[in-house]
């Protein structure tokens, strides 16, 4: 069951990767800024045309959008791209914005407006149908942009950091909305937020420096990471031992200035809500531990301190 296959080599941006999405599933494309997430989405949508790429959408029959001989322009691909900027069209009402896609795909004006109204209801902004696009708040505008993207009923929906421009409250609301809308939609969501992956994705693909670093189901990748970026994103340490990987959570690691366990050096100290997360470089990788800065010796929250790390016995090794 293939939803989207996208392979691209873009040497100008140092990207050489392959992305596969099964029909009806949502993939979180994770990676730091500059890892090539947006490039992959742009190639899939047809906004970027590298010399070597292959893009196939759907099945029976699969539509080849891009290979050695074929190139289908973006407007003829059953793919819609939503970016962090809503890019609503100025000078049109909200309803006209959402009806734009259905109109472009051949619906009559009335049918397009009816469809647009339905999608505005599903995204909770039907009351704004006749507002001007430029008068909306960021969260409202992104809801309209989501309605506009879904109204084209794409075979594949691509979302490029759709929540990155919103504040925490608006992002939470729009994330919950997307969680409801993306069931049974073939979608790829590029993000560097754990919460997006946790709430929206069935599968996870991690990119690093233009390559796919690891991939699998959400639970597998996020609890058993094999790449440092993934471990850090999931808030876990990562050790590479001769017998396999270990990814203890911060609660499973105890720090002491002198004690048993692995010797290491404090690399970073991050303030979290009530506690402080301390990242420790150890010879086999990196470990995280949550420390109470009030009751612990100050040395335990000072970068550069030599410490020892004890890992809870229940943490198991995987390969």
């Amino acid at each position, binding site marked *: 069951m293939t939803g989207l296959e996208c392979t691209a080599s873009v040497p100008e941006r140092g990207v050489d990767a392959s992305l596969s999405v099964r029909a009806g599933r949502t993939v979180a494309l994770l990676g730091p800024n500059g890892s090539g997430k947006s490039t992959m989405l742009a190639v899939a*949508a*047809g*906004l970027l045309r590298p010399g070597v790429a292959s893009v196939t959408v759907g099945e029976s029959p699969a539509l080849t959008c891009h290979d050695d001989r074929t190139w289908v*322009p*973006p*407007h*003829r*691909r059953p*793919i*819609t*791209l939503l*970016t962090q*900027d*809503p*890019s609503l*069209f*100025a*000078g*049109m009402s909200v309803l006209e914005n959402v009806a*734009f*896609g259905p109109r*472009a*795909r051949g619906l009559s004006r009335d049918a397009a407006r009816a469809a647009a109204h339905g999608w505005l209801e599903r995204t909770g902004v039907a009351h704004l149908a006749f507002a001007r696009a*430029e*008068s*909306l*708040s*960021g*969260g*409202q*505008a992104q809801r309209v942009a989501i309605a*506009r*993207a879904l109204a*084209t009923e794409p075979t594949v929906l*691509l979302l490029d950091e759709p929540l990155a*421009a*919103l*504040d925490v409250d*608006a992002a939470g609301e729009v994330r919950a909305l997307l969680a409801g809308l993306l069931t049974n939609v073939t979608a790829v969501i590029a993000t560097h937020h754990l919460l997006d992956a946790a709430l929206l994705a069935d599968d996870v693909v991690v990119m690093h420096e233009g390559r796919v670093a690891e991939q699998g189901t959400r639970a597998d990748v996020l609890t058993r990471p094999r790449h440092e970026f993934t471990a850090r994103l999931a808030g876990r340490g990562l050790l590479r031992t001769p017998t396999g990987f270990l990814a203890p959570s911060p609660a499973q690691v105890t720090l002491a200035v002198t004690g048993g366990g692995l010797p290491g050096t404090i690399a970073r100290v991050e303030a979290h809500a009530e506690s402080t997360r301390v990242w420790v470089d150890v010879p086999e990788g990196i470990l995280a531990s949550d420390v109470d800065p009030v009751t612990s010796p100050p040395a335990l929250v000072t970068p550069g301190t030599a410490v020892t790390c004890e890992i809870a016995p229940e943490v198991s090794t995987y390969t």
Partner: protein
Amino acid sequence: MTAAVSTIARPRTRAGATVTPRWLAIPAVAGAALIVLPLLGLVSRVDWSQLPTLVTSEASLAAVALSARTVAASTALVVLLGVPMAVLLARVDFRGKTLVRTLVLAPLVLPPVVGGLGLLYAFGKRGLLGESLAALGIDIAFSTTAVVLAQTFVALPFLVLSLEGALRADGTRYEDAAATLGAGPWTTLRRVTLRRVWPALVAGTVIAAARALGEFGATLTFAGSLEGVTRTIPLEIYLQREMDPDAAVALSLVLVVVALLVVALAYGGAARAARASARPTPEVR
């Protein structure tokens, strides 16, 4: 009343009052004077009692009618030719683009007389295309068509420059969005791109029209000065300058008023359009 009282009672908070060097006012006022004084000079010489008669004389009316017709035609031609030029220059990469852009802007820096000579040697009887045109029974030089061509020649760069700049500044974000929503290039150009740069299109068109209205040198060289056929308002003013200075001043006043009105209306319109449509993306909340 309350509002008026409070504005008097409480000094308004102003921005930027302390960062501009005050002495800039001296050259700035001198510059403004250089522009305004000649206009005042014109107005001071107007024979107001004779004005209606002078402006409605047969020659004046013929010139005004001809200017109206030719400016309407050349402005339409400027939009028809200039919009595609601006879009291609802003959006398509091709070899020799820098050269093309430089050449397109030539009419801005050439003396109009030189432009007129060039037009004569391109479209005139003995010009590059003269024989081919003559074979088709078309003789452009010293006709009303020549006036329109001369005006288009000098006015075109104003629209291209203004529109191309706006297109570049706007980027392709919205066009990309329209494309992945399924809109073809023509739909996207009409419904998304041109709507976003509408203020620049309006402003560029108006400046081009004003330039066409004032066109003198290229018209005289390429089209001559034939009453009712090629003698537009500026040519009529130049002719009357010796014979009947009062008539020349009266027509000049008409030209100034029309030009200022058009520019004020268009800039007002463009500013309104800019406020309404080209506002930056809604603030992130």
